[in-house]
């Protein structure tokens, strides 16, 4: 059995925990619960002909007071950078986090996840930014933890990338 550690990274309240909940348990709650420290979940996915056990490290959201400790990132085979489409600054945080992650554990596969796609009309980040990022070689996925849109694909996509190495 192949096991992979995946970290959920992003600014606070972008929907990291909700994405994990949606992916693992197919549930969504409107109630906002801030994550303290780390919460770990597990889900087995099938990529190609292989079963892969994903250990999802849902790490507390980064904000100006609390920087994500890189010790939680050690050994991660891949990570998600979650961005809240309605808050432009979360993209900035995502890139800061990417730099720090690469500084700590080197280059590992990651995916930019633009969450809250169910309320895309309220987004601050426009479609062009997303296209530009895709053009720059980043893997960009639109998701909605609320509706479940794109969630499965995001995880499968990252799994695929990790297996390709």
């Amino acid at each position, binding site marked *: *059995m*192949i*096991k*992979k*550690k995946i970290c959920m990274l992003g600014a606070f309240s972008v929907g990291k925990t909700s994405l994990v909940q949606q992916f693992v348990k197919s549930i969504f709650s409107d109630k906002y619960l801030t994550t303290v*420290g*780390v919460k*770990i*979940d*597990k889900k087995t996915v099938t990529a190609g002909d292989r079963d*892969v*056990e994903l*250990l999802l*490290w849902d790490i507390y959201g980064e904000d100006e007071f609390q920087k994500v*400790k890189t*010790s*939680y990132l*050690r*050994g*991660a*085979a891949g990570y998600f950078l979650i961005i809240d489409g309605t808050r432009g600054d979360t993209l900035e945080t995502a890139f800061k986090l990417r730099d720090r992650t690469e500084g700590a554990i080197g280059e590992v596969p990651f995916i930019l996840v633009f969450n809250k796609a169910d309320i895309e009309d309220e987004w601050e980040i426009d479609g062009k930014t997303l296209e530009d990022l895709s053009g720059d070689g980043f893997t960009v996925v639109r998701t909605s933890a609320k509706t479940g849109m794109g969630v499965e694909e995001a995880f499968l996509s990252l799994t695929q990338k990790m297996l390709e*190495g």
Partner: protein
Amino acid sequence: MKNLFARKSPENVPEDHLTQTDDSLNELRKLLVGSLQSQVEEIQELLKNQGIHPEEVSKILPEAIMIRSSRDNQILRAMEPITEEAIKTSIERDPRVLVDVFVPVMLPAIKKAITSLIREMIQTFSATLEHGLSMRGLKWRFEAFKTKKPFGEVALLHSLIYQVEQIFLIHKDSGLVLQHVASDEAVTQDPDMVSGMLTAIQDFVRDSFGGGKDDSLENLQFGDRSVWIEQTSQAVVAAVVWGNAPEEFRSILRETLDAIHFKHIDTLRSFDGDTAPFEAEERLSDCLKSQFKSKEKNSFLLWVLLTVLIVCIGYWSFFFIRDHIRWKDCVERLHNEPGIVITETGRKSGRYYIFGLRDPLSENPGEILEKTKLEPEKMRFNWELYHSSHPIFIIRRIRSILRPPETVTFELKNSILHARGTASYEWVVDAEKLAETIPGISGFRSDDIVVIDLKAIETSKEQIEKTLFFFDKVSAKIRSGQEDTVRELVRHIQETDHLAQILDKDIRIEITGHTDSTGSNEKNLEISQKRAEELFSIFVSQGVRPELFTVTGAGSSALLREENSEADREFNRCVSFKMTLKDKESRPVGRPLEENGVGDKTSPDLPSGQNKAGDKASSDLPSGQNKAGDNASPDLPSERSRSEGAEFGPL
């Protein structure tokens, strides 16, 4: 690469040839080789030095060593003696240099080893303290003595109850589970998530509280369970242990982890999530250990023993407390008893004892003991006899010495003993002599004593024996009109009895029934007996002591008058009385007449007809006073002794 070895070069140019060149040739050479001149000079320089050039060697040496050591270990062998020698020389010259180098390496390791050792010692010490004095402890001590092991070790072996429930082998960086084993009884959660959290907690603790890279969480405790964590640079082993495992379990974990680490070092370094290589690892399962005490098995027996013990203690306590209360009561009673002085009390070898002083005339302590219900065998008395000066005891002592009749009372006034009441002259004389010898008595006054002598009894005796009661023919009821005589006689008898008591004598009155000579002897005996009994019951009903009397039916054998006329016969149908007086000592005490006296008629071995009223005589009364005139000899007549002596003794 430049050729370092000049001799091996095929283009070896002789030196003398160069020195012989002329200027023109040099010029030509400059034109021909131009810019290569410096290189040529360099080559020339090299060619001049045919030995090894250190500068050049230093450039290639590391590379050369690496190449060679990858092929074989010749370099290691070559280096070994030199290195050893170098270290030795260095230490000989100045050991501090090497010490400074090794301290950072050795110190943490030494610190860790000592900490672990101290922890183990404390655990051993606690176990020794805890079990050192118990029954179980003594058993273990014996075992330690037998096996020659330290006591602490034996105690630990027995007292630790633990079970290693789960063991996780975790990849250190990613926190992914490489292998997970659990005991059958253990309740397990998803091992991956548990291990992830464990890793996160490790990170969290390190981030939160600082500490070096090598510092790590070694133990987590929650209730009865603890998580024991050991780690190397690549792997972590975490054991969930229920109860108290011995400290040596950590060493086992450590050894297991080290073995796994070295076996899978490459796999661990390049771990990409594939746990397959670790799945066949069996070492972890060997760490699932447990030890239980066989306590549960014995608990029933233990409870039974405990109950029995409690019952025994309760039983013993009950009796002990009861006896103690009785003992206190006994001491209290003795303390309050006049004439008894307690000097010491206590308990020795299960028995109570009392030492003290006791007046011989005081209450018997044995009887007091009986009243308190304390078993006599649990008590030991030790009395010193003494004379109490308590007025009660002085009077008692006087009574025991003077032996006064009951009619006498005493009073002590200013050491003078005053006697009151009635007594015989002889007693008064004796008492006056004896009183002087009694301690605490300085005089005896008998002024208030009414002195009585035998004369008074003689008079009464005459009055009694003079009295006769008459009956109608065949009747056993006294003829009417004699009621006053009955009253008179009763009064006389009671007075005489009273006087006799004062004189320390006993009186005995024989009631004899008579008939006239007509009729058959049997009938006459029966009637006469009934007549005597009639009088006896009258006296008793009037309050006279029954033991004063003997009852005899004489029939017609002892006629009071010769029967010449009907008047004589009428006179003979009567009951007569005879009184005797004896010293008190001569009579057996306390034998009531009801049992024996009236029993004349029931006496199986004597025919009633042999009872003869006239036979009886008193040895101390003048014979002339025997009214019936049957002069019996002072020594007892054989007939009487046969009929009554068996019952009363000589009267």
